């Protein structure tokens, strides 16, 4: 070490004298602020711009390029659209399917999630990953060949059939994220409960579940959104009896004058946005990310 001592210093540039420094900083800060502000603005335009632009259109009587705002406004498109009764039913349907699917998904996936997190059994990882297959195969191809299967199972055009098709999109979330949540509950907390006399089941419901709840909530939100968003499969299986919002929307967006389509878009994204305002906080936590770290 003393030898180290002798070898010459390779260190620090002389310190900048203290007083001059703050002045420099002020300028730097100002610039940094400006740049930052710009970034925020850009992101805002990128994310929100399209949505706002679209909603403007819903109130436009005439709007000709190039002008930033419609020349004249109207509500006629709203009247026209709201007159359409199919809308209501499809919204109602969407809101029956999404919860049902989420619940069912939770029912079959949560136990699995717990097992993945707590037990060690042969092929654990393989199975965990195999669920991932649902994401990897393109939906179109999948649904086409699913159709045949559903017929032979007498599921075509039935409520259950639609549920199944939407379920497929939720399984990965519903297994991976809760699995991570369960794993993050220290075993010692469970053992402490066993120690004071609680049986395994009670331990799960009084300790493990409450502590994993946030993660599970996130999973449920995502599942809800997933089944809420599913269009192609739902049409293939559900038509004619079950036409959900997004399915409806394909048609509308493509077959109505832009303004009407805009109105539809607003109406149909209202529920999602409400949901967002409710649950954004939970989704932002690291819970989601945790789920995608396979262990």
């Amino acid at each position: 070490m003393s030898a180290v001592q002798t070898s010459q210093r390779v260190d620090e540039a002389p310190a900048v004298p203290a007083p001059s420094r703050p002045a420099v900083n002020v300028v730097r800060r100002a610039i940094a602020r400006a740049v930052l502000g710009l970034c925020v603005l850009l992101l805002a335009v990128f994310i929100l711009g399209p949505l706002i632009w679209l909603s403007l259109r819903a109130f436009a009587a005439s709007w000709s390029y190039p002008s930033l705002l419609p020349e004249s406004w109207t509500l006629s498109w709203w009247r026209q659209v709201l007159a359409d009764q199919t809308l209501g039913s499809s919204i109602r349907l969407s809101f029956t399917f999404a919860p049902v699917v989420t619940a069912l998904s939770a029912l079959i996936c949560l136990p699995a999630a717990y097992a993945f997190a707590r037990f060690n059994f042969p092929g654990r990882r393989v199975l965990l990953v195999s669920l991932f297959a649902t994401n990897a195969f393109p939906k179109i191809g999948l649904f086409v060949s699913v159709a045949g299967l559903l017929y032979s199972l007498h599921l075509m055009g039935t409520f259950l059939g639609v549920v199944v098709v939407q379920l497929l999109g939720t399984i990965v979330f519903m297994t991976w994220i809760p699995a991570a949540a369960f794993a993050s509950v220290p075993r010692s907390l469970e053992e402490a409960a066993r120690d004071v006399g609680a049986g395994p089941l009670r331990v799960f419901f009084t300790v493990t579940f409450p502590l994993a709840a946030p993660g599970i909530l996130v999973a449920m939100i995502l599942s809800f959104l997933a089944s809420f968003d599913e269009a192609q499969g739902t049409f293939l299986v559900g038509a004619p009896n079950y036409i959900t919002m997004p399915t409806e929307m394909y048609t509308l967006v493509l077959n109505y004058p832009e303004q009407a389509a805009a109105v539809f878009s607003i109406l149909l994204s209202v529920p999602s946005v409400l949901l967002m305002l409710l649950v954004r906080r939970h989704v932002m936590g690291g819970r989601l990310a945790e789920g995608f770290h396979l262990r």
Partner: protein
Amino acid sequence: MSDGLRLRGITKVLGGRTIVDGFDLEVRRGELVCLLGPSGCGKTTTLRIIGGFLRPDAGEVLIDGTPYTHTPPERRPTAMVFQNYALWPHMTVFKNVAYGLRLRKLPKREVAERVERVLESVNLTHHIHSYPAQISGGEQQRVALARALVLEPKVLLLDEPLSNLDAKLRVRVREDIKQIQQRVGITTVFVTHDQDEALAISDRIAVMNNGRIEQYADPHALYREPETRFVADFVGTMNFLEARVRSASQGAVVDLGDGVVVPCAAPTAFLDTPGTVGVRPEDVHVVADGDGAKARIVRVMPRGHYKEIVLDLDVVTVRAFVGMEQPTEGDVRVRFGRALVYVDDRLRRGSPSAPARSPAVS
């Protein structure tokens, strides 16, 4: 005889390694026993076997004579305080403590009463409605203790309950624990790797190494007469010297070779071939002059009410604990008090055999 806790030939293999190896332990009712040992020696594993979180591969666990070897934790009369307390973050202090009682379907009033009583005993009543996250480490520790005590278990198990407290607190809380334990008079097994802690609070200490018990004795005996070299090394500070112990004109001496000879008041035995001799720092007597081996003071470390000094005896360096008043400059002379003689790592006692070259009296 069969009161308290008994482990008979407990063996546990984990991940192919034998972690606990034919472990026998007997804890009297109301006694506080420490499992003391280096990290990884199997303390926690043993404790978890007693608590029922692990099934031993062999041996049995008896509490007040009844076998509990295969009973799941929830049906054992044991209560555990976990290393990180394992308080349930989503329950208030009250709920945490009440949990076990609620399970037992006690009337609300009684639950409340008992919880309050136990929280009083660890004086935490003012935090009864706080959440674990809102209270300090030491307080959390006491909550965990209360949670264990409120069930009035027959055996209390503590796994390094103090290791995440800071130095000052650690000392205070360990005395609280001891007091409460004595008051309640509960049979207790206390896991730690801090010998200071063990010495301070135990009735008896079981020093563990590689899943076996090296020595099981009360603190005083353990410190004074460590049966094995491991114990001698692990408990307290010890100077180990490669030396011979023989009797000379002025009495017994420790001969370090190269003509360095230290008078020794009380060796446990004589050694005519060089062996290991252990001398406690407080048994290294340092005097300004008078007879004794020459030594130089290399370093002085104030330890509060005493000083730890490092002495150079040419062939070896030894540590000594001396009072604050003791002058600690320059050259001094060294004498040993008790000296523990180890042959193949076990303490050798008994009538010193006369050194080989002086004709033995037959």
